[in-house]
């Protein structure tokens, strides 16, 4: 079961995801990167069945690029989130994807924003969020320690707290997590999947 979570700070959003890829009782790999770059200022953290996860997110990524080439316009985070929701909702009653998503982005109008999209395609803009089993452990923790406009050090410390909690208490948590941040300067990889 994938663990992903996101925390927004002042003008930036942090996304973290575990890096293990398992099938039943076998761990297939421990350096899977589950945070995909959608464009220079958007990140997608993906959780769910492996095939659906990569197929759906690549589909969204390529369609955003196509939109950019056709219209010479990069979509805002809100527009990209609504587009993603629409694609998931259209597939829901014929050919559903089993993917839970966190979309983080930075644009000029809204600043940094984080969108929580579940596999049934309901969507909400949230200050922080976590999918799957991680949600049960981290919601309370993030409620307690998150404040508006935290700076980078504070958010990284909070993310470490979250990762330690998952390592300690979640049976199926991966050991390794990848962490990426998106802000006005683009995407920074704080901790890569293969480290």
């Amino acid at each position, binding site marked *: 079961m994938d663990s992903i979570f996101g925390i927004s700070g002042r003008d930036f959003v942090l996304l973290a995801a575990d890096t293990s890829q398992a099938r039943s009782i076998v761990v297939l790999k421990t350096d899977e990167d589950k945070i995909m770059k959608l464009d220079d200022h958007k990140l997608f953290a993906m959780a769910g069945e492996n095939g659906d996860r990569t197929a759906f997110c690549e589909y969204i990524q390529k369609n955003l690029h196509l939109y950019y080439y056709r219209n010479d316009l990069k979509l805002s985070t809100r527009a990209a989130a609504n587009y993603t929701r629409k694609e998931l*909702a259209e597939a829901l009653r014929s050919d559903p994807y089993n993917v839970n998503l966190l979309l983080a982005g930075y644009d000029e109008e809204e600043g940094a924003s984080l969108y929580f999209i579940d596999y*049934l395609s309901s969507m*909400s803009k*949230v200050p922080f969020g976590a999918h799957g089993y991680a*949600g049960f452990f981290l919601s309370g923790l993030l409620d307690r320690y998150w404040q508006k406009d935290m700076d980078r050090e504070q958010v990284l410390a909070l993310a470490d707290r979250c990762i330690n909690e998952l390592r300690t208490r979640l049976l199926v948590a991966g050991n390794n997590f990848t962490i990426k941040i998106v802000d006005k300067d683009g995407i920074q990889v704080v901790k890569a999947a293969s480290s």
Partner: protein
Amino acid sequence: MGDNIMAYNGGSVIAMAGKNCVAIASDLRYGIQNHTVGFDFPKVQRVNEHTFVGLPGLLTDTQTFHEKLNYRMKMYSLRENREMKPQVVAHMCESLLYERRFGPYFVEPVIAGLENGTTPYLCAMDLIGATLKTQDFVLAGTSSQAMFGLAETLWKPDLDADHLFEVISQVMLNAVDRDALAGWGCRVWVMTPEKVTVRDLKARQD
């Protein structure tokens, strides 16, 4: 998804009529079964100048149905060059839902508006578009049983806007406090011929 798909996300909406005014209220919880994810997810939208539509139920269908309804309403106003009346909005919802009779949207619309800007109009329907029009109050959602009891007791005809706000707020707050799947704040809209006010209620955050 569990045995009750309408209770997967949770949420409740109630609308009431007063003297030349209507009020509609929604809880703000965004949850996934027993896990609360967000606290700013109202299920009611003001779809045009004189109509509110509340859509409690499965929240993905709430969002999809709101989008479909907005699209159809905008096309109507482009073609007809006029606004859709509340009764027409209700009939459009009814037909959009019945189109999906054997694979329905899991929402139970609650529609409130002012016909001609003055006369209250209330309508509720089930997930396949069976409508109910009434003069007092309409409601739907996971707290429906509690809301029915409170609304039946507290509602009186011909309440003015301020009293209607008090009544609908008390019904909403006390009903969602007994429901694990609804709550985390309430938002109340009151529409009179002159204006629309929206207020957030201070509610138990659990």
